[in-house]
């Protein structure tokens, strides 16, 4: 196989988290009974007119500022004309020649630690279509227009990605960002965040791009990766067997793990874009931009850098803990409770026990059963040697299921660590007395038996003996000290 280079660009559709639709007053909540969230504007009744939702513009500007993009002072809504039953007006209102956001960029960190900058050509506002329902109706198709008119931000990247992994890393980064900005809930199952992938291949070293195929409507990171893998293999095989790639739109079938042609360029619609005469151009001034800028939160990269700098975390840990605003906030609250000096311990616990409990029980961190203050109090007990790290895990599980404080559980279960040397000594004496053979073997050189004695003492103390003290005392006793 010749050396092929993969070229990928993504068009990400992020549903904006506005209360109402982009051009009507209807609600945007997911999962309502069909057509209960569609008013006369959404249904495209004769005579109705669109009125732009200012909140959607604010959100688009917020996104633009977060990727260092140019916010267009003048942008225009255009009509994209085509007939489809789930498109009630017969056109989609979108932005075409003059989008609200252009020329941004985003830095992604790959698994191997390499850092790559991906260009973002533009981001524009548009309305979503409704959906057709083909199931459960005998001789007809149904149409649900609840989604029609839902605001979308379409984020178009440059063809800067060179592998499926890069594409996924970029998509994840955008996913993190839009949730940080609180402009999209990021829910991929509900279709709030999805993408189209433009994929082509070219012999490495050649400048000219190959012919691309566009894979539509990918709604999970895994599908993006698999669809790109499939598509790259398909194109390479086609080219190596003397064929040519045709420019077309393809659909990824996750059941069969393959992409299939939807329509070719020749069959593509002529959308007859033109400026929508029902809407004025969107004029944005500095005051508006600065007001939006003032609402920008600390961005993921800034937060990760601060975690690494202020808390001495590794780049990886800082990245994980800043992956969502909620996780970052939780972590910081734990650090505040446990003390900055124990940030690493806090990081380990948040990424370890807490995350696995959240995942296991499918609980959002914002409503975690163990609050950051409670977790911080638990960590304090590790630090002050009231309990060992191992016992702490047991305490944590009890906190998770019973909702009580660490101290209450330690007290109730008698898990307080034994740090009284004489108490540990007497247990050691009893263990040695009960195991004369092992003692003899140890003394004759079987060092490995040290672990056996530790285990016996821990067993006798239900794990409560202070491990460091135990080690020291046991070494002395086994060595023959009185």
């Amino acid at each position, binding site marked *: 196989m010749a050396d092929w280079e993969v070229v990928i660009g993504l068009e990400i559709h992020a549903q904006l988290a506005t209360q109402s639709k982009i051009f009507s007053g209807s609600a945007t909540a997911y999962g309502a009974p069909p057509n209960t969230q569609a008013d*006369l504007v959404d249904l495209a009744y004769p005579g109705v007119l669109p009125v732009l939702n200012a909140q959607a513009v604010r959100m688009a500007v917020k996104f633009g500022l977060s990727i260092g993009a140019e916010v267009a002072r003048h942008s225009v809504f255009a009509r994209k004309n085509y007939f489809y039953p789930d498109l009630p007006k017969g056109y989609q209102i979108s932005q075409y020649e003059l989008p609200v956001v252009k020329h941004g960029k985003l830095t992604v960190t790959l698994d191997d630690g390499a850092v790559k900058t991906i260009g973002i050509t533009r981001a524009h506002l548009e309305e979503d279509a409704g959906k057709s329902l083909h199931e459960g109706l005998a001789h007809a198709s149904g149409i649900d227009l609840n989604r029609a008119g839902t605001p979308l931000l379409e984020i178009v990247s440059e063809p800067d990605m060179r592998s499926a992994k890069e594409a996924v890393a970029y998509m994840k980064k955008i996913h993190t960002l839009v949730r940080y900005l609180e402009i999209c809930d990021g829910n991929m199952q509900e279709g709030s965040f999805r993408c189209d992938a433009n994929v082509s291949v070219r012999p490495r070293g050649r400048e000219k791009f190959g012919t691309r195929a566009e894979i539509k409507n990918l709604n999970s990171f895994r599908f993006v990766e698999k669809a790109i893998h499939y598509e790259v293999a398909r194109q390479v095989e086609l080219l190596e067997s003397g064929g040519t790639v045709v420019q077309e739109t393809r659909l990824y079938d996750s059941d069969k793990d393959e992409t299939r042609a939807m329509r070719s360029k020749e069959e593509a619609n002529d959308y007859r874009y033109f400026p929508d005469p029902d809407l004025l151009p969107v004029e944005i001034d500095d005051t508006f931009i600065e007001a939006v800028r003032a609402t920008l939160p600390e961005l993921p990269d800034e937060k990760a850098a601060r975690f690494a700098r202020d808390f001495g975390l590794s780049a990886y840990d800082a990245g994980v803990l800043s992956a969502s605003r909620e996780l970052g906030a939780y972590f910081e609250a734990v650090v505040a409770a446990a003390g900055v000096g124990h940030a690493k311990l806090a990081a380990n616990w948040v990424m370890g026990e807490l995350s696995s409990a959240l995942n296991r029980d499918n609980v959002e961190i914002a409503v975690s059963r163990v609050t950051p203050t409670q977790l911080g109090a638990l960590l304090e007990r590790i630090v002050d040697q009231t309990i060992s790290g191992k016992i702490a895990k047991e305490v944590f599980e009890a906190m998770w299921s019973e909702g009580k404080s660490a101290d209450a559980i330690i007290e109730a279960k008698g898990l307080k660590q034994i740090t009284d040397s004489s108490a540990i000594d007497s247990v050691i004496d009893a263990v040695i007395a009960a195991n004369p053979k092992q003692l003899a073997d140890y003394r004759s050189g079987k060092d490995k038996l040290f672990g056996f004695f530790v285990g016996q003492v821990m067993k006798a103390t239900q794990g409560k003996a202070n491990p460091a003290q135990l080690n020291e005392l046991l070494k002395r006793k086994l060595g023959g000290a009185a």
Partner: protein
Amino acid sequence: MLHTFSIGELGRRLSAKEISSVELTRHFLARIERLNPTLNALITLTADQALAAAGKADARRAAGEQGPLLGIPLIHKDIFCTDGVRTSCGSRMLDNFVAPYDATVVARLKADGAVMLGKANMDEFAMGSSNETSYYGPVKNPWDTTKVPGGSSGGSAAATAARLAPFATGTDTGGSIRQPAALTGVTGVKPTYGRVSRFGLVAFASSLDQAGVFARSAADAALVLQSMAGFDPRDSTSIDEPVPDYSATLDAPLAGLKIGLLREFFDGLEARNAALIHDALKIYRQLGATTVEVSLPNLPMSVPTYYVVAPAECSSNLSRFDGVRYGYRCENPKDLLDLYTRSRGEGFGAEVKRRIMTGTYVLSAGYFDAYYLKAQKVRRLITNDFRAAFKQADLLIGPTTPTPAFAIGAKIDDPVTMYLNEIYTIGANLAGLPGLSLPCGYVDSLPMGLQLIGPHFSEAKLLNAAHRFQEATDWHRQAPRGYE
């Protein structure tokens, strides 16, 4: 007798309790029943609702409320959505469509107590200059029933001229108020684009459509426009500009008014038409106005420009009529494409189809720049021409139409000749300017219109100039024979 009174006079009599709105409404309903079968000016009569609304208006008057339109009957062009009443747009496509809401224009007039008698016939989706493209058949001109009343608001114009109501609403995209007003001898006002809300007005060409009024005098039109005009948050293109008191300045003196004579309007104008305009100018000079010749060099391009822009917008605006959610649906569609093509093929008439196809063509890849974009540039040039002209003149004056009403059937098979009817009116639409047509005499015993065009938001000035002219003349008081 009641139908001969002005809105002002009717208001005084209603206020003095000499008549009731119910009586007035009965009077006009009776006239409609008697005269409309000949004229075909109305598509839908809403007698029961009208009497109920009149009763309410009387109750409001009895409770002490006043208002120039409280209890005054009107007819709405069937392009305005009216809650619970069929809104057909003169099309088979919407023959079964009962609007679930009121257009802003309808709601405002309703709130002021005006009483809707019914819905006026019109060219299908406002596309036409003769009212012959209506699914409900042509409207007859009350001055000569073998003649067209003009269009697209032909039903509203004919109804006003025939005294079937004191006033009627209309819309003007390329002249659809001013041209039929001229051809039926009534006063028609097309306000500044953005002055009156388009919400609930079924769109033909969104950047050109503007709602306005037909009345028998400028003074009446002022009262109606007062109610219709104003900002509407539901129409992003409506403009938040204070509405002046149009009646207050009707009598303002015209001394010092500079009237611009558009050279392009007089080039090739038929002699008898030109003579009427010059007679009108004499009156204006007597009223103290001066005249100055102005030129709009790009104006001759207005018709071709319009016939790119308007069809382009219409081709998109009418896409929603697809047989899926409301309106006409073909029998037994066999699949989606069949549903679309037959519903639209059977639901739309020939002129509408012609414009959809023209518009689709000019927006297509490869033609967009040559047609749509070029037309937008010319539109800008025409707007600039007007702007320059208004540095020299306060108002522009010219004919409304090149000829008086023509025979039904004479031009319907020749679209280009038909389109040239709007040669004098389209410019104001392209530039978004207010225009007014008022009767100024006769050619071949048929009424002719004098057109006034003013700068943006100069409706008060246009109404003032028209009113002063009407104080000095009585063209506007003349009724077609049989409709006095």
